[in-house]
């Protein structure tokens, strides 16, 4: 008799768990029930005991056995078949209350009853087992279907792993540990999603062996059975994403093994897909950064060469040939202008690299906007000589909380830009106001403004309007944007109705706490 089949127990979540032995303990109820049913039937049938119709009792008992077989396990069914045969013999076949059978036909009847009851019971259980297996298969198919669907929905290695871990937990009653490779065929020693889990040195070397040989190893296998985990390789078609480790009570076998293998293949494929996706993205990123690098390199070498050439030419001329005083000072002027340009370039490059490396830490403190404007106007006094900078800051402008260094650079870049594009002797307007928890800074000029089609690119790195008359890397405005955003603010650009561009910065700020101030001062 085969009893080494899966027996199903529904747990509280309605998830079927599989065990390898019939669960006799929880079937005690069935044994008792079978016993009681046979007892009651016997009692009810007692009036028939002394009549000639005791054969009828055998039919009734067979009927009962068949009914019980439809929902009981093989154990109670075997018991109920034997018990009913014995009861029929003992109570109903004359001579009563003995197991002795007088008539040959009764003996035959008894034998047949016993066999029919047994066959009936066993066949019914078998049918039920088939049905249960079919249901299990269906559940596995469903589980696989669901897994495939969720895996295909998951994007990114982390999401795929989360789905895989949940699936294995649900269907295999074990908490899996995924050890993935780093993209260069070297395994990590800790889980990607499961940071708390870490392999010991020995476990790691087993995992590595599994990864390189694509064969399972660990507990219940021939290789390194002494470790706690059983390691299964995950094999993709183009690369192996890694290894999965599970703690098992026994190695998978039969249908369960096939189920596990299919489950793992699905997960491996999904992981491989994500790995390849990541690699492709890295490649795209490399191409993009290569392009940026080339642009940067070209424009930097250009931007460096021009002022260096000026300095070299002018100083060489001053050193080697006598010049009248006015030519001399013109040459000195050129040298000085060139160094200012170089200095601005270096400043912008440093700021850009600070932004790019994410090293901008905003140190907020209270500042008077007038101070900021004065400082920037002072720094740009040479550039502003041929412009009128019209500053408007309301008298009741409160202190604002900003990073002085960053905002100084922001204003510097915007006003410097205006001086480069606006016509000489025009006005540059700088308006600062405070509105509804925001400080608003506007820089307006009377230059040509921006063509509509490039509006979206104004703040992009290395973007320059083609008609730019002046040099520059196209970093200034992207630095403005980066620094303003570091303040959690926004910067927008537009064209003015009567010509010129208009930059608007909005930075959230709070009101300074100066309530006690007047008390202190008097």
């Amino acid at each position, binding site marked *: 008799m085969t009893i080494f089949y899966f027996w199903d127990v529904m747990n509280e979540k309605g998830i079927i768990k599989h065990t390898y032995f019939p669960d006799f303990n929880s079937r005690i109820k069935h044994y008792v029930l079978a016993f009681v049913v046979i007892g009651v039937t016997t009692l009810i049938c007692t009036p028939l005991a002394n009549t000639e119709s005791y054969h009828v009792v055998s039919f009734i008992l067979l009927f009962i056995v068949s009914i019980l077989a439809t929902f009981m396990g093989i154990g109670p069914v075997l018991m109920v078949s034997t018990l009913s045969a014995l009861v029929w013999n003992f109570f109903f076949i004359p001579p009563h209350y003995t197991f002795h059978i007088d008539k040959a036909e009764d003996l035959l009847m008894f034998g047949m009853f016993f066999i029919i009851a047994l066959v009936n019971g066993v066949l019914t259980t078998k049918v039920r087992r088939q049905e249960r297996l079919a249901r299990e298969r269906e559940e596995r198919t469903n589980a696989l279907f669901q897994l495939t669907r969720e895996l295909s929905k998951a994007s990114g290695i982390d999401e795929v792993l989360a789905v895989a871990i949940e699936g294995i937990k649900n269907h295999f009653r074990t908490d899996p540990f995924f050890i993935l490779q780093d993209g260069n065929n070297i395994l990590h020693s800790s889980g990607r999603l499961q940071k708390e889990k870490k392999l010991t040195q020995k476990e790691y070397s087993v995992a590595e062996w599994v990864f390189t040989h694509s064969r399972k190893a660990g507990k219940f296998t021939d290789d390194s059975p002494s470790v706690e985990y059983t390691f299964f390789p995950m094999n993709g078609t183009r690369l192996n994403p890694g290894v999965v480790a599970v703690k098992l009570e026994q190695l998978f076998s039969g249908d369960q093994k096939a189920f596990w293998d299919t489950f793992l293949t699905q997960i491996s494929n999904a992981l491989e897909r994500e790995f390849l996706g990541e690699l492709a993205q890295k490649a795209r990123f490399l191409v993009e950064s290569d392009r940026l690098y080339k642009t940067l390199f070209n424009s930097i070498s250009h931007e460096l060469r021009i002022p260096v050439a000026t300095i070299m030419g002018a100083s060489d001329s001053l050193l080697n040939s006598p010049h009248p005083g006015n030519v001399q000072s013109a040459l000195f002027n050129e040298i000085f202008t060139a160094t200012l340009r170089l200095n601005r370039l270096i400043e912008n490059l440093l700021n850009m690299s600070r932004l790019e490396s994410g090293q901008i830490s905003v140190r907020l*403190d209270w*500042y*008077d906007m*007038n101070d900021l404007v*004065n400082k920037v106007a002072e720094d740009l006094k040479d550039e502003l000589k041929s412009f009128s900078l019209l500053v408007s800051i309301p008298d009741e402008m409160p*202190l604002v909380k900003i990073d002085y*260094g960053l905002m100084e650079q922001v204003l510097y870049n915007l006003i410097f830009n205006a001086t480069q594009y606006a016509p000489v002797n025009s006005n540059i307007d700088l308006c600062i106001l405070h509105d509804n928890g925001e400080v608003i800074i506007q820089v307006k000029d009377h230059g040509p403004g921006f063509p509509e089609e490039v509006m979206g690119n104004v703040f992009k790195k290395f973007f320059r309007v083609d008609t730019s008359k002046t040099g520059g890397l196209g970093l200034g405005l992207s630095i403005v944007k980066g620094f303003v955003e570091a303040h959690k603010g926004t910067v927008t650009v537009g064209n003015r109705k009567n010509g010129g561009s208009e930059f608007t910065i909005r930075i959230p700020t709070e009101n300074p706490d*100066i309530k006690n*101030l007047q008390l*202190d001062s008097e």
Partner: protein
Amino acid sequence: MNEIETILIIDDELQIRRLLEITLSANGYKILQAGNGKDGLVDAATYHPSLIILDLGLPDIDGQEILKKLREWFFKPIIILSVRSSEEDIIKALDNGANDYLTKPFRSGELLARIRAAIRAGEKKNDAPILEFGSLSIDMINHVARKNKEILKLTTTEFSLLCLLAKNQGRVLTHQYILKEVWGYGYLEQTQYLRVFVAQLRKKIEDNPSKPTLLITESGIGYRFGD
């Protein structure tokens, strides 16, 4: 100038030392040079210069350490000239006793002005009863400030703030230092108080409050009392 002032330059960049020597000699200063911190400390002790120009990024000893060592016995002005432009470094140097700072690249005109101001401030007797700055005069004894001979209405805090800055004319005072001296230790973070008072004070003492010449803001670091 009665005697020739000696300036010690401690900087590891030969080109910068050469430039400084040319510019400063042309303006009547005697120049000493040291290419590293060790030599700098020895030279300072040997020649007792009137002023030291110190680079913070020296190859052997950290500039801040040299500053601390110098300040144990050297009380004449020290000006920091460094490429390190981060506000923290500057504030740290000022706290360690530097009088002023300039970041490279710098304009020589600016450097000369700072040197003159620092030397002048060092010579000036800060305990004089009356300090005069153009049309502004501060009477320390009677706690009165006058502008164009007219008495200014200043609150107590405004007057102490003005005195503190004026006594340290030419020297950059950090926010924290001013807050500690004028308001006390409990107010070190209350930069907004300082801002408001500086703005009020400017309206009273400056000829043009929006273009201050006396109460000069040092970006993100502190204030300096100008000439």
